[in-house]
């Protein structure tokens, strides 16, 4: 559309479609990048059961990412499928929260990250289960059940490490301080198109904060830990601005598909 044209009904529809594609992509990117990081633990976790647990959680997240990115591709209508979106977009096109791309750090950092991400996703997916967008609501209803297990796993470990030995307590407290600056970004509404909020397709993430905070702070308190008071970092994940860690993650995740286009098993 050239400037000066009055928007036709078709153009309005196209704008909404682009908005919806972008919104769904951002949720899919959270799940995809989180899955990629968790999968790095396989064969490196503190115990065999934990390899299996983190692998399972990664698989659930990957499954959600596939559903969301496939749907984003359909909505966009440019013929891109889940693989195109995962493997052939560059860093600035990824819309995930910066929190999920952070390097794993030690096991405590991974658990702290999982606690925040799963608590956030659980509140978000619960609300999205009644989205006016049928597909989004179906994906969210399914994901809610899975993420409830993820949050429980993170909770058990936070309690065990926080209320464990002096050393594990200290590691867990340090881990919380490492991830806490990335929390603000989760509850920023400013990137969500107003049309999607008005039509009940999207959820204002700021409204998730009270339930999130109540859950997380209760767990932290029970674990004899303290909620950190640290300044938040500049955000931008939803606008394609990422931390230094993101490029390395993408290089590893995308190199095979890019080096061997069309490769199959």
């Amino acid at each position: 559309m050239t400037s000066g044209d009055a928007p036709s009904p078709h153009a309005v529809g196209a704008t909404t479609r682009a908005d919806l594609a972008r919104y769904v992509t951002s949720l899919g990117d959270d799940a995809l990048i989180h899955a990629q990081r968790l999968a790095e633990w396989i064969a490196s976790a503190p115990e065999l059961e934990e390899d299996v647990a983190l692998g399972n959680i990664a698989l659930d997240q990957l499954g959600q990412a596939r559903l969301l990115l496939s749907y984003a591709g359909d909505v966009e209508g440019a013929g891109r499928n889940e693989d195109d979106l995962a493997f052939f977009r560059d860093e600035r096109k990824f819309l995930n929260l910066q929190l999920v791309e952070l390097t794993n750090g030690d096991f405590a950092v991974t658990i702290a990250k999982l606690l925040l991400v799963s608590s956030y996703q659980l509140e978000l997916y619960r609300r999205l289960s009644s989205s006016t967008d049928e597909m989004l609501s179906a994906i969210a209803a399914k994901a809610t059940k899975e993420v409830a297990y993820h949050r429980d796993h993170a909770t058990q470990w936070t309690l065990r490490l926080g209320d464990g030995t002096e050393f594990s307590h200290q590691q867990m407290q340090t881990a919380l301080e490492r991830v806490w600056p990335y929390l603000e970004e989760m509850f920023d509404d400013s990137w969500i198109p107003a049309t999607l909020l008005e039509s009940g397709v999207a959820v204002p993430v700021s409204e998730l904060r009270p339930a999130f905070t109540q859950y997380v702070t209760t767990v932290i308190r029970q674990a004899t830990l303290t909620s950190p008071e640290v300044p938040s970092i500049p955000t931008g994940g939803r606008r394609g601005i990422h931390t230094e860690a993101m490029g390395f993650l993408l290089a590893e995740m995308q190199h095979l598909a890019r080096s061997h286009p069309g490769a199959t098993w």
Partner: protein
Amino acid sequence: MTTMAHDHQQTATRRAWHVAAQLVDPEIPVISIADLGILRDVQVDGERVTATITPTYSGCPALDAIRADLDQALRAAGFTEVVIKTALSPAWTTDWITAAGREALETFGIAPPAVATPSATTRSGPVTVQLSVHCPQCGSLNTEETSHFGSTSCKALWRCRDCHEPFDYFKAL
């Protein structure tokens, strides 16, 4: 549609359902996809048969294999045009596993899931861990969970304190 054509279609639909329902889950080869509750619908319309399945977990890798198996089985049964659809809603629950399916799981050595309550995933507290899973080997109730997560998305790891055997528990979802 004439009555005869209608009868013919009903017979074809029953036959297609029967073919589809017999397929087993590739990861738990003792339970059919019908007993597992993931075969949602089979419809025959003229030459076309449409089967609808639903994933157990979003990331379940068995779904692609099941889709391929279904396509192959229905073609082998003489249906020329096969469409496999995936339905996400309503989300699969372990409550859809049939009594025969639960029995097959137990015989195979996998403890069947507890009946899931809707509140288990919607309330804010931790996920309930069922306290009375009985050992599929010796039947003892003296068992404990060793890991929330097991060899596939749908299972957790347990062990029996009496016969000391580890076993899989099909998680209630």
